[in-house]
């Protein structure tokens, strides 16, 4: 089983990429809790008015039923799109580089303990325990489960790849994993926050082979 991240103590070196985003507040537990509260507030703010409008329309004029249906559809679709955006951070992206992937997979496997290695081979996601929560690292993003596994933060993060030197998928994961292990809070600060919400909203939009990784991460809380 993976051991907890330990590279973000006060004496550890900060992630050098933090220099690219000097305006951002360092993402710590307090920041994540506040961000989650704000995200919940906004979700309610954009989701509730549509069903309320639908109900009002039908009460005022039953013939406006089709318009009320359209309102309900909006109230359903918009949160769905946000959750889809969150799940998309883990979707495989870019070339597969089948020729070099086995070599990259070997290196990534060396960085993981036995159980996370097997999980990564089955699901494509690397499990890593941290001080902020449990991480699932993919090719171009990461999920962080907090609050006893009841909340998931989705982060979009990419590599500075140049030209045709496209890396195989496992190397992209290894890049993110090493950055995460160097400075967990710094990693969360550099990455873009794409979504925050309940894990079930993300789970059903993940590719089926990735869902066991989310279940395993939730099981660690």
């Amino acid at each position: 089983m993976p051991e907890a991240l330990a590279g973000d103590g006060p004496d550890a070196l900060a992630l050098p990429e933090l220099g690219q985003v000097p305006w951002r507040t360092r993402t710590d537990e307090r920041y994540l809790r506040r961000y989650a509260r704000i995200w919940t507030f906004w979700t309610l703010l954009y989701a509730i008015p549509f069903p309320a409008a639908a109900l009002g329309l039908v009460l005022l004029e039953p013939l406006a039923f089709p318009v009320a249906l359209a309102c309900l559809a909006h109230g359903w679709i918009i949160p769905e799109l946000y959750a889809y955006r969150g799940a998309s951070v883990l979707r495989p992206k870019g070339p597969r580089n089948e020729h070099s992937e086995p070599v990259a997979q070997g290196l990534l496997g060396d960085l993981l303990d036995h159980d996370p290695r097997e999980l990564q081979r089955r699901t494509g996601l690397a499990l890593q325990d941290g001080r902020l929560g449990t991480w699932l690292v993919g090719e171009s993003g990461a999920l962080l489960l907090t609050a006893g596994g009841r909340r998931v933060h989705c982060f979009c993060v990419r590599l500075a790849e140049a030209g045709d030197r496209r890396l195989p998928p496992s190397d992209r994961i290894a890049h993110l994993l090493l950055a995460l292990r160097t400075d967990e809070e710094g990693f969360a600060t550099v990455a873009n926050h794409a979504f925050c919400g309940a894990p079930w909203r993300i789970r059903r939009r993940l590719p089926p082979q990735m869902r066991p990784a989310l279940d395993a991460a939730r099981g660690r809380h």
Partner: protein
Amino acid sequence: MSRLIRMDHTGHTTLAEWTAADQAAFESAVEHFRCELEDGCIAVHDLGGGKAEQLRELPRDAGLVIMRRPIAGG
């Protein structure tokens, strides 16, 4: 035997290998290390236990040193 590798489109490339007793091999590894840093790479030493450290100098007894590219918000 310590190794300096770079993650690249081939999976990874071994840039240098050295032992603490082999001064010439170590100096060659340091040269590669500096070239990679100048090229914008970041040197990382995975310490195990979920911990990694960024290196600015190449230790003689490093074990495995991995050169990675910088990350950015997607």
